[in-house]
């Protein structure tokens, strides 16, 4: 524990304890029967515009934002700004389909995206595929949060000096355990409440950093000029430029098409993730969902500023040298803050990043747990499970999912942790035809959708596995070269998925294969009921609200 700054460490611990307390207290907020999956997993579906904004913001801006994006900008330049383009594009895209999903889910009481798939296509198999994809895709995304926490802890010097890998990861395990326990106890209420604290911390340190750090580094002109010269330099290893300062038409690794496909793929993917849908379904009214599409871009401004930290780290010789010595681009932002800020403020910023990773990790594991309980456990194993049993199941599964994420965090190469999120994106995008398609049309045949999904999943996984780099032989990136252009694998995979689904639908319709029942009605996609549907009590149930 040498090299630990006591002030920084103390501030982080104090803020962490406060947040943990809030996490446990959240169970009493708008007190209700926690042994009900709607309560534990959707916060009682009673969140207005304001809380939904914080909750979705907590979902969307994560360690991905604070660690992974600046790390990519630090390492490769402008390609990292695809994340900025993506968070702008995401809102007009989801504006098209998300209110429809909210409405139909509210009318029918759907908790997960797979519930909707099952109701729309009358197909348990398709719903199982959707649930499986959701759980699988969330694991690398949660893993990314853990990598982010680890980056901060490493720079703080906590445990990093030990050569024993167990001691080294111990602080991470402790943070992880606390997260697991308060998620278990408080469900979705915990991250919703903590999101307030998290966002306040983050807004404060980002704004301070954006105005203060450039004054230390000779102004924005110097930062941009330095970055431009830096990325134009030829790397002695690859004999190519280190990166690009703006996306160019022809270049290896950073073309305009790569930039646009990463942004589009990520934007479509975001609200296919079960946790983003969970956050949406927890909203009280359809209007709250729509208004959020208008207010949420406020967070995008923040993201753009945070991405610029990558250039600040490039332009600051001390930070750049530290990162190079550690050989880990993820450390760019933590090192930058440590060098630029007084130690107490570094503590505030570090606590903000750690909490900013814990909140989404909690929401994601809750969403994955809901998926498993509703669409695998109840559907295939215990149809008459009581609400209390369902909630208990979800609580335990949320722990299992986090352990799976820990495996991803340990096993996959960390050169750019952003690849963890992009890998999840490749998988979750395969739900686009059945989910987004299904919100607008019942034309697709359920078997064709299943075949398309399988084709997309297989192609995407194999293609991602085969991406290699100088430092890693597999899983090294998320873009590959198709027809002479570098493009995001998720996008090519979902195009393949769509083509298979369309062709097979035409064939299956020609041979009149059974279509399956559709329990939804067209006007239900526009409905705005103000009363939440009463959860159907299977058996006796433990409802105390009567």
């Amino acid at each position: 524990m040498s090299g630990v700054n006591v002030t920084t460490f103390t501030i982080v611990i104090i803020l962490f304890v406060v947040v943990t307390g809030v996490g446990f207290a959240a169970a009493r907020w708008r007190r209700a029967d926690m042994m009900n999956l709607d309560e534990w997993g959707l916060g009682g579906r009673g969140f207005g515009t304001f809380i939904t904004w914080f909750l979705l913001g907590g979902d969307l801006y994560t360690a991905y934002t604070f660690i992974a994006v600046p790390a990519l900008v630090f390492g490769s330049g402008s390609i990292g700004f695809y994340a900025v383009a993506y968070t702008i594009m995401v809102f007009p895209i989801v504006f098209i389909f998300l209110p429809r999903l909210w409405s139909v889910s509210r009318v029918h009481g759907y908790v997960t995206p797979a519930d909707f798939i099952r109701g729309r296509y009358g197909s348990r198999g398709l719903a199982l595929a959707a649930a499986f994809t959701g759980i699988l895709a969330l694991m690398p995304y949660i893993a990314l949060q853990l990598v982010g926490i680890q980056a901060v802890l490493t720079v703080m010097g906590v445990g990093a000096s030990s050569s024993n890998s167990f001691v080294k990861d111990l602080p991470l395990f402790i943070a992880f355990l606390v997260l697991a326990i308060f998620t278990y106890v408080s469900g979705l209420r915990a991250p919703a409440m903590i999101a307030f604290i998290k966002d306040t911390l983050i807004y404060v340190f980002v704004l301070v950093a954006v105005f203060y750090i450039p004054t230390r580094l000779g102004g924005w002109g110097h930062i941009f000029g330095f970055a431009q010269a830096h990325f134009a330099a030829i790397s002695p290893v690859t004999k190519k430029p280190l990166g690009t300062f703006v996306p160019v038409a022809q270049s290896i690794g950073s073309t305009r098409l790569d930039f646009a496909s990463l942004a589009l793929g990520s934007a479509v993917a975001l609200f296919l993730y079960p946790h983003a849908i969970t956050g949406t379904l927890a909203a009280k009214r359809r209007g709250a969902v729509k208004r959020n599409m208008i207010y949420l871009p406020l967070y995008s401004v923040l993201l753009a500023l945070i991405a610029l930290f990558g250039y600040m780290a490039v332009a600051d010789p001390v930070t750049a040298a530290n990162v190079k010595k550690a050989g880990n681009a993820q450390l760019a932002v933590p090192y930058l803050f440590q060098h630029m800020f007084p130690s107490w403020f570094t503590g505030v910023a570090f606590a903000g990043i750690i909490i900013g990773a814990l909140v989404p990790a909690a929401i994601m594991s809750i969403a994955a747990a809901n998926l498993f309980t509703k669409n695998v456990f109840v559907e295939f194993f215990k149809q008459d499970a009581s609400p209390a049993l369902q909630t208990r199941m979800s609580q335990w599964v949320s722990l299992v999912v986090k352990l799976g994420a820990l495996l991803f965090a340990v096993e996959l190469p960390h050169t750019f942790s952003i690849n963890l999120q992009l890998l999840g994106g490749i998988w979750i995008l395969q739900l686009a035809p059945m989910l987004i398609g299904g919100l607008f049309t019942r034309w697709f045949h359920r078997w064709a959708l299943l075949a398309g999904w399988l084709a997309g999943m297989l192609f995407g996984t194999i293609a991602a596995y085969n991406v290699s780099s100088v430092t890693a032989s597999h899983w090294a990136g998320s873009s590959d070269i198709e027809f002479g252009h570098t493009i995001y694998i998720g996008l090519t995979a979902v195009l393949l998925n769509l083509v298979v689904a369309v062709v097979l639908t035409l064939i299956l319709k020609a041979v009149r294969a059974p279509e399956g029942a559709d329990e939804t009605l067209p006007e239900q996609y526009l409905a705005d009921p103000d009363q939440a549907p009463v959860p159907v009590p299977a058996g006796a149930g433990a409802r105390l609200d009567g």
Partner: protein
Amino acid sequence: MTQATIRSRSAIAAHPITSTAIALLVAVDIFLVLWVPLYSRLTPKWGDFPFFYWYLLIIMPVSSLLLWIAALLQKRLARPGTGRASGAVLAEGTVRSVEAGSEDGQ
């Protein structure tokens, strides 16, 4: 089923111009960011910021504004007496019947 389909489409049929405007607003909003050649250049600079970087910052409030207008227009589509409103009322009534028996849906 067919009757309900007609009902939900009637909002678009009744306001073709407003509906087109909404679709256009959303499409333009996406295009402004998706078409990278539009902004992947260095000049004109704004202060110390190269074009690529200040464009991405400026486009955020623009995107918000376009969506806000689109949402306002949608509200006009949904005024009482139009298809959307009656659809919402109908939807609440159908919850029970749908849960009772969805087998005969097709």
